[in-house]
């Protein structure tokens, strides 16, 4: 990546070489030599802490340059060899790149929060250069602007609502209907037929009036009562048909719509489950869940209640217009006159109305969250005797809600009145102009009445199309967000060329493994470690030292960035993922339990196990005794996240689950902490049974856990600081020794204050 020479300044090799405007180019040319390779060349969006303006940061192989503002502004040059470190300092609403160096110039660059992710990467990259490492830059940053229209995206790497490929999305949505295409076709035909049939009754009424009841020229009266009966019979028949069509249509609509939506949800859920953890890291849980709920709801409503009516409503409008023109072209044109004003007026008021509805929903959610808070926090409120104040707060929210409800209702009224006013104009036209034509005997009474009916029928689909568009946009945005997840590459569960292995021995070998969650921010550096089958390793270090990261790599939640990690001598990437994970057991501090029976929770990793095996595992985990004391014993439902059990009980169930699973590699993540001593002893005993004969990695802060480990691996800042047995490390008087010392001092201190503290090692961290 170090080949962007100045000779080709506009050649963009990495995302961190941006092309500067000519002014900046000239300023740069004046202070750099021909043969200095440009490594980083990026713009910031602030000029000092003062104004929004573009400033430039350029790093060449020789020097670091900061150009404040593009045309004028000062130039700061720092030779790279005098730079000691670069820090991206987080400020409020922005950040600052501090260049620390041995000179006396002031080298800082301010940027807004928009560019903070970029400069965090840049700081890491410059530090690599300073340390003499090779430059590794991320190849892409999260997109903040839409690549097509340049609009700022509402969510990083998200979907631009303005640029949704509507046809593409529609095509994919329709793809979910494809399996039910015959029913869907019948549905469309029925809906259209329904629309057409609904046009018939006013026409029949016209004939009843004109030919039977009030013929303009009495001599044309032909049928009398018999014709009346016939026409009313037709009316009845038409209504019956409409009724049948409506019943069948609704039934088909729900049948097809719900199935299609169900298929979409199924696809979404299964791809959510198989997504690599890396993907979930980048997004908030809330945003993933909202795709499952809100977005699929949007799509559901669209598929069920909008899409089926597009065709029929078009047909309806066209049919009415044709009929009106057919009956009396001149009157029809007059009657259609108010339509454009109605569309314009309603779209104007519509915006205002939506504003109030949005406000209403915000206030409503505020009210309900206050309600929620004051009910779940009722103990605190009562303990501090604040019922009255909560009541007053509620009153304020309630009043706010009432205010906005009134405004919303008022504008809805205005909206309603205005549209009705214009609609009634159509009626006025019909009565006046139609009436005049009637008087001149150019029009018959029945036709006049039919005109009125059709007019009323016309406005409904027109209004529907107004709402339809805005809703379609939102539904499509939801659909795109769903498709984005469905399309995301899943974990390579059954990669070709990977062999399913029956049982592994459990030798785990790290060979100069380096890893970073983000490229450029390395968290593990050159880790070398060979673990024998059946060995127990204790992982020690301050938080952030890389203990959990090491374990994430063993589970292959992430792939190593450099080096190799192998199990039984086979690179972990060549093992089939399912095989690997079925051989790994995980017991962590917050053991997650599913809202199911105790039996099912213990059986989670091995669904085929019989009840005898479950019993044996529970006994081995010292869980049996407390389970049988429960009213429902093994059939007890543990509640959401196991909330009906105590912490110690949950842990013992997790241990039982791991024992039944019988993994070759066991991971204990702070498995025993914050528990009372008798419970802890039981858990320790259970863990000892579990650990026997398995390769074990235990993250622990407690000395008691660590003493039983064969070797301790002490991590410091992503590097292995020390490896050895407990006694060895104490004798060596190094990093571990100091941790233990600090801990003992703290324990002594706490003991003198008669505070019972757990024996933890984190006390030595800061």
């Amino acid at each position, binding site marked *: 990546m170090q080949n962007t020479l100045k000779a080709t300044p506009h050649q963009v090799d990495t995302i961190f070489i941006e092309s500067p405007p000519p002014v900046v180019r000239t300023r740069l040319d004046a202070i750099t030599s021909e043969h200095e390779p440009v490594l980083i060349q990026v713009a910031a969006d*602030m000029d000092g802490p003062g104004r929004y303006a573009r400033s430039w940061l350029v790093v060449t192989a020789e020097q670091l340059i900061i150009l404040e503002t593009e045309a004028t502004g000062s130039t700061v040059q720092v030779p790279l060899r005098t730079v000691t470190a670069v820090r991206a300092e987080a400020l*409020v*609403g922005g950040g600052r790149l501090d260049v620390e160096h041995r000179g006396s110039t002031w080298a800082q660059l*301010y940027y807004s929060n928009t560019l903070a992710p970029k400069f965090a990467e840049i700081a890491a990259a410059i530090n690599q250069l300073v340390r003499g490492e090779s430059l590794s830059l991320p190849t892409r940053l999260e997109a903040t602007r839409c690549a097509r229209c340049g609009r700022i995206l509402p969510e990083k790497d998200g979907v631009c609502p303005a640029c949704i490929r509507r046809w593409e999305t529609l095509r994919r949505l329709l793809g979910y209907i494809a399996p039910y295409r015959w029913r869907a076709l019948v549905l469309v035909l029925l809906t259209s037929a329904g629309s057409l049939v609904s046009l018939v009754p006013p026409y029949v009424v016209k004939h009843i009036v004109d030919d039977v009841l009030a013929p303009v020229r009495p001599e044309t009266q032909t049928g009398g009562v018999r014709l009346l009966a016939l026409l009313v019979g037709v009316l009845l028949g038409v209504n019956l048909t409409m009724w049948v069509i409506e019943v069948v249509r609704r039934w088909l609509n729900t049948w097809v719509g719900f199935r299609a939506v169900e298929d979409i949800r199924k696809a979404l859920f299964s791809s959510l489950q198989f997504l690599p953890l890396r993907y979930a890291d980048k997004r908030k849980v809330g945003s993933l869940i909202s795709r499952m709920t809100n977005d699929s709801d949007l799509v559901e409503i669209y598929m069920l209640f909008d899409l089926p009516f597009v065709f029929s409503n078009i047909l309806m409008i066209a049919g009415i217009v044709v009929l009106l023109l057919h009956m009396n072209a001149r009157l029809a044109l007059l009657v259609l006159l108010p339509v454009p004003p109605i569309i314009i007026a309603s779209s104007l008021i519509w915006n205002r109305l939506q504003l109030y509805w949005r406000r209403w929903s915000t206030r409503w*959610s505020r009210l309900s969250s206050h309600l929620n808070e004051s009910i779940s926090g009722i103990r605190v409120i009562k303990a501090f005797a604040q019922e009255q104040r909560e009541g007053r707060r509620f009153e304020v929210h309630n009043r706010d809600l009432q205010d906005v409800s009134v405004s919303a209702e008022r504008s809805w009224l205005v909206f309603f009145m205005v549209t009705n006013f214009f609609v009634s104009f159509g009626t006025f036209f019909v009565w006046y102009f139609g009436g005049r034509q009637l008087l001149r005997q150019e029009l018959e009474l029945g036709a006049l009445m039919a005109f009125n009916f059709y007019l009323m029928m016309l406005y409904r689909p027109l209004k529907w199309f107004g709402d339809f568009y805005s809703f379609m946009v939102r539904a499509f945005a939801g659909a795109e967000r769903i498709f984005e997840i469905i399309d995301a590459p899943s974990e390579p569960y059954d990669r070709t060329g990977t062999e399913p292995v029956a049982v592994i021995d459990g030798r785990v070998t790290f060979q100069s493994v380096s890893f970073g969650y983000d490229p450029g921010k390395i968290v593990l550096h050159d880790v070398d470690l060979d673990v024998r089958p059946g060995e127990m390793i204790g992982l020690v270090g301050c938080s952030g030292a890389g203990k959990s990261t090491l374990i994430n790599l063993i589970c292959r939640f992430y792939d190593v960035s450099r080096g190799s990690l192998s199990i039984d001598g086979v690179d972990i990437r060549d093992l089939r993922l399912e095989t690997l994970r079925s051989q790994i057991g995980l017991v962590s501090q917050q053991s997650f339990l599913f809202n199911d029976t105790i039996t099912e929770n213990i059986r989670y990793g091995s669904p085929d196990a019989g009840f005898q095996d479950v019993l044996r595992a529970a006994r081995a985990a010292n869980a049996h005794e407390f389970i049988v004391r429960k009213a429902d014993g093994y059939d007890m439902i543990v509640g959401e996240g196991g909330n009906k059990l105590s912490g110690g009980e949950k842990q013992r169930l997790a241990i039982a689950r791991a024992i039944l699973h019988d993994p070759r590699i066991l991971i204990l993540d702070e498995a025993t902490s914050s528990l009372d001593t008798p419970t802890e002893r039981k858990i320790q005993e259970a863990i000892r049974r579990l650990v026997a004969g398995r390769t074990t990695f235990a993250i622990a802060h407690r000395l008691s856990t660590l003493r039983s480990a064969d070797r301790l691996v002490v991590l410091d800042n992503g590097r292995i600081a020390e490896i050895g047995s407990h006694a060895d490390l104490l004798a060596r008087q190094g990093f571990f020794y100091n941790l233990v010392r600090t801990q003992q001092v703290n324990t002594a201190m706490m003991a003198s204050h008669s505070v019972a503290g757990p024996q933890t090692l984190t006390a030595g961290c800061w």
Partner: protein
Amino acid sequence: MTETRGVKMSSNTIDTPESGFTVAPITVTHPEKVDVRAIRLFRDPPWLLRLTLEGDRSYTRVKVVRAAPLSHPDHFIALLDARDEEICMIDALDDLDEETRSLVGEELDRRYLTSRIVRVLSVRNEFGTSYWTVDTHRGRREFVVQNVGENALWLGDHRLLLIDVDGNRFEVPRVDDLDKRSVALMEQVL
């Protein structure tokens, strides 16, 4: 009454007459109360802030932060050391001498990159997201606020804080002071 100074918190002594039992006042000893007149700030080297408590000790890489940036921007200014531990607190900027005050002010300006909105040029609300173009005291800026209900905070009746999708902050100190057009535009979405 209880004085919340961050340095020393003393609650009133509560006497219960029947028993004669006295509840000892709670005192916080860290960080210790520092006389603001002893505070000397320097830029040494120019990009780092050094603090000397006269006649006592010295700190380098000092950070100046507001304890309550929204409700008390000119009071309760904390000075932090390189490890972000509090050295001392300045209760009111006015207590400082001219020179120190201007230095503290400069440091605060460098830390709080919130922009003050001077004029609203356009606001569009599309698809539940609002797109803003505004003139601020730092110049023109475009930004996007998602979910206005959560990201537009009213601090008092007239003061408004907007937080955009990237976490940039835009403040309107008094909405009433803006021109009519700006207010009308803002009302469309708020």
